[in-house]
């Protein structure tokens, strides 16, 4: 197929869900061979529904889909795959214990009952050479990095003969170095006439770098179609959110005060009993945001838990305002004014089966102000909950709504409404914006800056390098349980920190 000819066309797709929700409202766009056509939209814009319709998981109520100019109807993903549509999921659908090759040929119609491994290997090898992919076919999937696993998913789709690839949040879990190699593979696929459709919520810069055209969805409608070279980041974000978005939050000028937290040579084991944190030392002062940049699994999670009191260190000491708190309980630390925002929401930061009030109560249940002789004063608690739920802009029908019904952004706002008002000295924010859309991300970041402005110390842990660099006063890239170096905001250049967190650069800058 010649590059530039339309191969996928979507016309007037409408999808309604029970309860009158219109997830997609007359959406149309077309994709040409060899182009990268990004679909942008916030959470709830209808991206997932559209993706599911293109891949045959859902059927549209109205509208038509054309592949190579022929009208098609998908009854299941199998139909879509047979017509050359492949999907790369955000949550990997691979078998960790199997090899790369086994994962690629799994489920292929050609594989049949008896597997011809030799032939399959040659075919996959040829595929790799054609697109310039480098991967060890005999490696087990669990040994691979996030980027390599993604490549396996792409290869699996290509091996099935995909000509159109749907990519769900392709860059969200990749490190800066992996993003580069991902962009290269996108280019080589485009050269071979493969059309790719990345669906993107969070990471605009990458989309910007790779796509040829962009379609922006908002509340189920196409609000803008444009060529990438005509677009600006700011304009795109505005199309997505529907209002102006401040991309660079103003870091407030705050006097850095006294030392709040001092961590001395702390080591800790992870859940598997392996040494994950290997002697980390640093301090945080009033009004300071200390950022830790790193790829997940390098000990930052353990560090956050040690400081919050959730994990016992096996070595080292922690001082809070000069007092040794190495062995104090989580509750005592909460009472001292230390707040912790966990990286996961449902089941860690929020109980889905509890109402919003009962979730807010998690931050104050121990406070005698809200109980009387061991019984909860629900009138006071409800007033308190009402106040902070509205102050933190949690959108919900009522404060008695079960938290499970909230979206990701609202869940995070709920956690902030529980933690921040009770945090007076030190906020530990562990991946606070992971999975959130632009509007919610902006809200969370401005809350963190507000904490700084009030003179709190903040420990910010994030895989999102831009976030760490944008908010922090000092940045420590973490790699394999150690800080590579502690950098000032001026020293912390993206390339330097990116290389450090990937382990490619030691402290000698």
């Amino acid at each position, binding site marked *: 197929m010649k590059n530039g000819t339309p191969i996928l066309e979507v016309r007037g797709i409408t999808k309604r869900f029970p309860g009158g929700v219109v997830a997609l409202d007359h959406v149309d766009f077309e994709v040409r061979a060899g182009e990268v056509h990004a679909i942008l939209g916030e959470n709830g814009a209808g991206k997932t529904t559209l993706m599911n319709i293109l891949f045959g998981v859902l059927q549209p109520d109205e509208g038509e889909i054309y592949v190579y100019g022929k009208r098609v109807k*998908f009854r299941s993903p199998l139909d879509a795959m047979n017509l050359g549509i492949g999907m790369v999921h955000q949550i990997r659908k691979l078998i960790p214990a199997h090899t790369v090759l086994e994962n690629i040929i799994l489920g292929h119609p050609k594989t049949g009952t008896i597997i011809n491994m030799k032939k399959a290997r040659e075919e996959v090898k040829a595929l790799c050479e054609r697109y310039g992919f480098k991967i060890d076919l005999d490696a087990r999937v669990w040994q691979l990095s996030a980027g390599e696993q993604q490549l396996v998913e792409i290869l699996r789709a290509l091996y099935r003969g995909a000509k159109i690839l749907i990519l769900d949040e392709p860059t969200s879990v990749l490190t800066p170095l992996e993003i580069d190699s991902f962009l290269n593979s996108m280019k080589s696929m485009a050269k071979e006439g493969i059309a790719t459709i990345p669906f993107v919520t969070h990471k605009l810069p990458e989309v910007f770098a790779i796509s040829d055209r962009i379609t922006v969805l908002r509340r189920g409608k196409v609000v803008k179609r444009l060529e990438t070279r005509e677009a600006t980041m700011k304009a795109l974000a505005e199309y997505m959110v529907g209002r102006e978005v401040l991309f660079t939050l103003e870091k407030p000028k705050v006097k850095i005060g006294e030392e709040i937290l001092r961590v001395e040579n702390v080591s800790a084991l992870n859940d598997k009993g392996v040494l994950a944190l290997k002697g980390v030392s640093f301090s945080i002062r009033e009004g300071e945001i200390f950022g830790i940049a790193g790829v997940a699994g390098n000990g930052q999670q353990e560090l956050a838990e040690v400081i919050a009191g959730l994990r016992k260190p096996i070595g080292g000491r922690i001082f809070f305002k000069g007092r040794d708190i190495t062995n104090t309980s989580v509750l005592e630390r909460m009472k001292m004014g230390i707040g912790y925002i966990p990286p996961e929401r449902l089941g860690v930061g929020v109980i889905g089966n509890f109402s919003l009030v009962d979730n807010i109560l998690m931050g104050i249940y121990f406070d005698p102000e809200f109980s009387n002789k061991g019984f909860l004063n629900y009138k006071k608690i409800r007033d308190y909950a009402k106040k902070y739920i509205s102050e933190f802009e949690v959108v919900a029908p009522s404060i008695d709504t079960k938290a499970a019904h909230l979206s990701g952004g609202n869940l995070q706002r709920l956690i902030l409404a529980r933690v921040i008002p009770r945090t007076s000295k030190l906020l530990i924010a562990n991946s606070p914006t992971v999975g959130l859309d632009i509007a919610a991300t902006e809200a969370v970041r401005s809350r963190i800056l507000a904490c700084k402005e009030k003179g709190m110390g903040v420990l910010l842990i994030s895989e999102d390098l831009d976030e760490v660099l944008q908010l922090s006063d000092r940045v420590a890239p973490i790699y394999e349980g150690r800080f590579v170096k502690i950098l000032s905001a001026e020293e912390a250049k993206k390339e330097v920190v990116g290389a450090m967190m990937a382990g490619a650069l030691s402290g000698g800058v």
Partner: protein
Amino acid sequence: MVYIQLPKLKRERVVVLTGREAVTISILSLVVAFIIFSGFLMLEGASPIEAYGHIFTFAFNPELGLSTTLHRGFFILFSTLAFIVPMSAGLWNIGMEGQFYLGTIGAFAIAYSFPNLHPALLIPLMLIVGALSGAGYGALAGFLRGKLNVNEVVVTLMLNNIAFWLVYLLTVGGPWAGIAESTSRPLPASAHAPIVWNIPFTSFLAIGIAVILYIFLKYSVLGYQIRVLGNSPVVAKHIGINATKITILVMAIGGAIAGLSGYHMWAGDPAFRLIPRPEAYKAIGDLTYWGILIGLICLLNSIATIPFSVFIGSIIVGSTVLVRRLRLPFGLDVLFLGVISLTFVAFQFFHHYRIKRIRRG
């Protein structure tokens, strides 16, 4: 070509189950149980309508079964409440049987030691010591779980067996053996439970505990901590709840409630007032397992378990007429109870999943 379109069904996870849905599910499961058992009745040549009529007219007739229905119903209520408290913290107390035996031992030990004490003193003392014995037995499993992370289901289940043999040792040829073979000596008259409106006063104690538990779990600080732990141990850890302390506490509370039922059972029914032969007290001990089912069906709502426990009591008592009055084969009454519990268990599926029909495109 003609296609026959079968509806395509899909299983969907239920995120939040409302009380109304739970009630609908249990009523449906009962209806199904009655329909299934009708099949067995017809197989035996009996009319289901007539049989069910007999069951309930006997169970609720004040002249016949009512007082036993209520007595057994409230006995099951004790077990249910003993299950609910640990379950609210996410722990499976399968040890109500053992805790009931321990409560029996505690109460009887007091009665035999101080037979001449005034009832106003003796009876509360029997209840307290019975509750403490049960509490200690429950706390043992709680300690193993909370401190050493030993699975509480296995521990409580094994402790049940130990408790059974403890009672056996005391009664069959043991220090408490009575004149009749393998039963205990009768309780002194001072230990007999006062009867109010034809039922032992401990029945009202059970209702009182159910109401207190409802308020305790819903509105107390401790009850809140228990519910957080029950919904998510991870969240509980993150907000500074001491899981070890709560684990031991809820198992002790559960054990105490089950322990109280020891006095209620033997001192409350004029037909007993002693510990009967092993197979008879084991049969009563087996009734405690209804607490698990009832607790789960009522979504741990202790007030809702009151009528439900009495209803199960009525079936336990009423179904005996199938054999005695309708001359149906022996064991059919037990089969009915089995059918009901199986359908209840099967319908637990709907507490977690919905079946949805999906339209073909």
